[in-house]
């Protein structure tokens, strides 16, 4: 199966690889997936007082599409408020990276990671955890 140019670009030059301090109150961390399934994503956001995401970092264990999906997600997250970030849909990622059907689960995982990171931030800062309506089970 051939990869799209955008997948190759994100895979070869992943944006925003790294680690934020998960114990900080201004950081939300989402860790999704499972090693047994062949992909695990950790996505972290740094949020300012106005609920704007000022930084995002990721590390991913998975195939090229999973790495590209999370790299793209970090790019899209920066500058958005946490409410705007919730609107990122996995199909936007599929479209941007031209993922084939067999790789759609990678984009779903990225969406889950975003929501999970936002929830972590919300709970840390006294907000209610959101019930995530969409999941990929």
């Amino acid at each position, binding site marked *: 199966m051939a990869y799209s140019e955008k997948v190759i670009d994100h895979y070869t030059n992943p944006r925003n690889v790294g680690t934020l301090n998960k114990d900080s109150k201004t950081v939300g961390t989402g860790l999704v997936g*499972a*090693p*047994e399934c*062949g992909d*695990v994503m950790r996505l972290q956001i740094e949020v300012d007082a106005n609920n704007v995401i000022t930084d995002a970092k990721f590390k*991913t*264990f998975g195939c*090229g599409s999973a790495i590209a999906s999370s790299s793209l997600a970090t790019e899209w997250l920066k500058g958005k408020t946490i409410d705007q970030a919730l609107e990122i849909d996995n199909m936007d990622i599929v479209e941007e990276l031209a993922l084939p059907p067999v790789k759609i689960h990678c984009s779903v995982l990225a969406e889950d990671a975003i929501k999970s990171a936002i929830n972590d931030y919300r709970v840390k800062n006294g907000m209610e955890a959101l019930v995530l309506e969409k999941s990929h089970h």
Partner: protein
Amino acid sequence: MMELPIYLDNNATTPLDPRVLEAMLPYFTNKFGNAASRNHAFGWVAEEGVDYAREQVAKLIGCTDKEIIFTSGATEADNLGIKGVFEMYQDKGNHIITATTEHKAVLDTCKHLEKLGAKVTYLNVKEDGLIDLQELEAAMTEKTILVTIMYGNNEIGVIQPIKEISAIAHKHGALFMTDATQAVGKIPVNVNEDGIDLMAFSAHKMYGPKGVGVLYVRRKNPRVKVTAQMDGGGHERGMRSGTLNVPGIVGLGKACELCRLEMESEAKRLSALRDKLENALTTLEESYVNGNREHRLPHVANISFKYVEGEGLMMAMKDLAVSSGSACTSASLEPSYVLKSLGLSDDLAHSSIRFGLGRFTTEEEVDYAIENTKKAVNHLRDLSPLWEMFKEGVDLSKIEWAEH
């Protein structure tokens, strides 16, 4: 000058040896006859080519030319052998014994026969990939007509104790068949010394063309018969009808001859290269060789690089053509059933890479592969949250992962 990408997937298929191509070419053009045409020179010339090839094949595996049935490949040979024995010997019994790490051509054929009333025992393998002979012995019954265990495994390269297995099968009055696709031409295989009654293999794994293979069927001590699965003109002593693929068969013959002449030195050269590759790559932390390291084919290395995912890794090894046991490489999203049969956890199975060296692999290529792989593993570990957690001393088995 080394050309990129480098082909290290010789268990999937091998390039055609130019000497094989040369032998085949006349049979596409002026020697185009049908080997079954008995009444003119065109047929005789084609038949001569086939007869010579039959001898070349027979010589490689130590049998007579009358025991060679040409097929379209090893998958067809596996089907013909297993289904043909089941049908021919159904008065005697309906029990077949095989192993969980067999090729799908064997496993799916057995599954098919289960629907037709066969009882099939799938032996588990030990963690080194070899079957347990005591388990085999215990599984034998009066109804057992066939034991079919592969010679060398396609994913991890382990070589089963064939002589011991065939002796157990024979002691209980069953036939012994082996899928020797990865072994024939790579290591000495002799049907008499090994006690083999039926054996499947194909040309394209030994530098011959695709689309041609062999089912060896023993004619003496005991005389084995299989019921044809393809009906028609009664070719191949009635066991496999269909016009013979003359150029393919001629190519297979030549490939067998070259393997017979060059096997010994080639096996030495390849195992030295394989060891070099393996020793260099296992200097990386948390990397493990899968399968028994003593009883195995000379040209295969299967290594798991923990905390990186196989498909992602292959993408970083973009100048190397290898394969992975990772789920992501298959549509099913299930990691390799062979590696799981060894008791490997799913995450290690996802992290495996198979390197298959071959006749045209050079030391320069292996050196390049080592550097390229090391770089790729390190790159992906820098991206891996699991690697980071491992380095921080987090016990990954204690984390509640959301299975998806």
